[in-house]
């Protein structure tokens, strides 16, 4: 049952990506291209994706997180970290460069697999390799690092 529900939730996410235009890298790149504003080629649509998503999530989370517990789980796993460490800047900086190169971030890239495009498979394979590399390095013990009590993937 949980599996079916999570499949349906992923399906809604994917439909959102397709309807919003996020699944089209050309649209993403035209949004990131603020240099195209004078020429009139800038596509502001993605700001609307963000607005719609954040508005619904903000309202939804405020209600859901008041519940005693999630429907299928023991508790909520909401990230509690507030510290600004170097990784919260360096990681997204690297991520943004890759995003700007191809126009794909993880969600749209996975949804693009369903379009049957070879390029999406190439991108996703490389993305998974990059993820595994980061997890491998992040989990390496280091005397220089202050003991991190949290999950390295925690938002």
């Amino acid at each position, binding site marked *: 049952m949980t599996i079916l529900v999570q499949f349906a939730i992923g399906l809604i996410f994917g439909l959102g990506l397709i309807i919003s235009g996020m699944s089209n890298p050309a649209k993403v790149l035209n949004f990131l291209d603020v240099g195209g504003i004078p020429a009139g080629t800038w596509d502001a649509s993605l700001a609307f994706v963000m607005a719609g998503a954040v508005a619904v999530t903000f309202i939804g989370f405020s209600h859901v997180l008041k519940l005693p517990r999630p429907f299928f789980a023991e508790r909520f796993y909401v990230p509690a970290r507030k510290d600004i460490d170097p990784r919260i800047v360096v990681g997204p900086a690297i991520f943004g460069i890759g995003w*700007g190169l191809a126009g794909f971030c993880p969600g749209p890239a996975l949804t693009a697999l369903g379009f049957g495009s070879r390029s999406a498979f190439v991108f996703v394979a490389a993305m998974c390799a990059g993820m595994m590399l980061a997890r491998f390095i992040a989990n390496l013990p280091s005397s220089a690092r202050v003991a991190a009590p949290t999950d390295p993937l925690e938002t």
Partner: protein
Amino acid sequence: MIATSFTPVASLLGGALIGLSAVLLMWATGRIAGVSGIAARLFPPYEDRELAGRLAFVAGLVAAPLLVLLVTGRLPAQTIAATTPVLIIAGLLVGFGSVWGSGCTSGHGVCGLSRLSVRSLVATITFMATGIATVFVIRHWS
């Protein structure tokens, strides 16, 4: 570059669906709908027993275009201009960076901002800035 048209209504609607999905996942499993975190946890080392649920979520993402094809009889435009070497480099950077920075556009940009997380705000501003800078360098400096 390939010209695209401004689609505020469809984008707002699609964004709302993404938000609905994030809210439903939190309601059902208590988890953040961060696609990079969900995808990265499909690989070992495993920290919990929720692999099947994550696989199901990703399967839903991949199946979405098939549902659109079934209902409307066609797939919307998807133009990937990047060459294979660029796709490989971009994929490595996106994968590495999203795990190193604990999230991507969905985890930080949607769920994090909605929780008023300062870490997610820093992350979102940073990846927007480097994404914009990258496209600017490619399109206007060469």
